[in-house]
């Protein structure tokens, strides 16, 4: 059974190294004071019980947490799988995959930012995730294009507000992610 809980679980204090689940207590219980997980965003919190697991398993699919394991691909594929659910187009998915494999430390941020953009602009706006390449310098980065049939006067301001919400989190990451518009019509 999947239960949708509040979208933004703010500032859960957890022990600096551990995040417990599958216990009778919520992850925030038994916390230390050394680290704070902020903006814990969960699209759905799955609780399941069965004969073999009576306490159930808590699963936080969009936890803003670091990547897992020694391989980059699984988390990249997870991110790419999550995008259609937010109606984010991937016109050249291979390029996006290629970029994310080399900058997999963006994977934990991407779904939450895309979700925030979708929620801000609604379902009539087209979102397209692409790799932008600067033809004059050797630079490329991920870009989420916001495209509308008819652009309102406040779109730039709205995009800047969204950027302010995430740009600090990009600091120290190996790649870059930009939300912008090219004022083109939706494809």
């Amino acid at each position, binding site marked *: 059974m999947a239960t949708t809980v509040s979208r933004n679980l703010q500032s859960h204090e957890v022990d*600096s*190294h*551990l*995040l*417990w*689940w*599958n*216990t*009778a207590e919520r992850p925030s219980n038994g916390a230390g004071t050394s680290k704070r997980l902020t903006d814990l965003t969960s699209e759905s919190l799955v609780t399941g019980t069965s004969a*073999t*697991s*009576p*306490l159930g*398993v808590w699963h936080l699919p969009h936890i803003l*947490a*670091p*990547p*897992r*394991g*020694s*391989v*980059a*691909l*699984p988390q990249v*594929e997870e991110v*790419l*799988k999550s995008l*259609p659910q937010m109606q984010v187009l*991937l016109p*050249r*998915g*291979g390029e996006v*995959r*290629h970029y994310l*494999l*080399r900058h*997999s*430390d963006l994977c934990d941020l991407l779904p939450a930012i895309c979700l925030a953009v979708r929620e801000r602009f609604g379902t009539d706006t087209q979102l397209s995730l692409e790799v932008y390449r600067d033809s004059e310098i050797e630079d490329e980065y991920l870009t989420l294009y916001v495209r509308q049939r008819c652009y309102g006067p406040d779109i730039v301001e709205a995009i800047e507000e969204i950027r302010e919400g995430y740009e600090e989190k990009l600091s*120290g990451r*190996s790649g870059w992610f930009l939300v912008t518009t090219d004022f083109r019509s939706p494809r």
Partner: protein
Amino acid sequence: MKRQGVNQNMGRKYAKPPVIEAVCEFRLPPSTQWDLTIPGLVYERVREEFPHKEQRVIQNIEVTEKPDAGGIQHKITAENRAWFLTEDRNTFIQVGTRALAVNRLSPYPTWEEFRPAIEKAVSVLREVVEVSGFQRIGLRYINRIEIPSPSVELDDYFAFRLVLGEGLPQLMQGFICGAVLPFLNGRDLCKVELTNAVPESQLSTAFLLDLDYYLARPEDVSAEGVLAWVEEAHRAVEDAFEDCISDRLRELFEEMV
């Protein structure tokens, strides 16, 4: 009966190899002396080939039995890792606490071109750390296979696949199938997993074929024997891969004869 440890396929070459990520990982036993200077010492010795350095935090998931908590408890631990990347970011070395991994992303060259990076990383590790043995060694190949058809019959392309009983719906929305296969009398194990993946086009179907070959009996490989193990592992993974696919896939990969 096929002899294990013999490269049956003599290293087939493909113009479009499906490997999207290959990784060779080494984990040292808890008794290994380790400190925070070690990643830096490794970087000093590899920086010429791996000039870019970054820090990442990865999650490790541990599953333990906790009878008083209802059976099984999952624990996520965060681990800091240093990443050292080549200029093109296609190959990188990861150094974590008692852990070393060498990754190669697509375009995957050849084993002859990937192996030196592994040899270098292991050699450098042994220069800076007293390595008496390994807790785990693994060689993993993840293949991404895109077939230009909106629906496919799995048995046309794969020899490792799901079989559905006649009474079940034959059209699948998604699937995972896997097995853990023993090699060399159980010294090694290979986890083979086939799943569907997100295709790049609505006109195609995509799969991930993941082969993770690893040492099951750590006491059987010494520090001196580790590179020989890696070489054997590669031969075994190559054979296993070929035994999972059909000639129709080989055509897609454009086998070079």
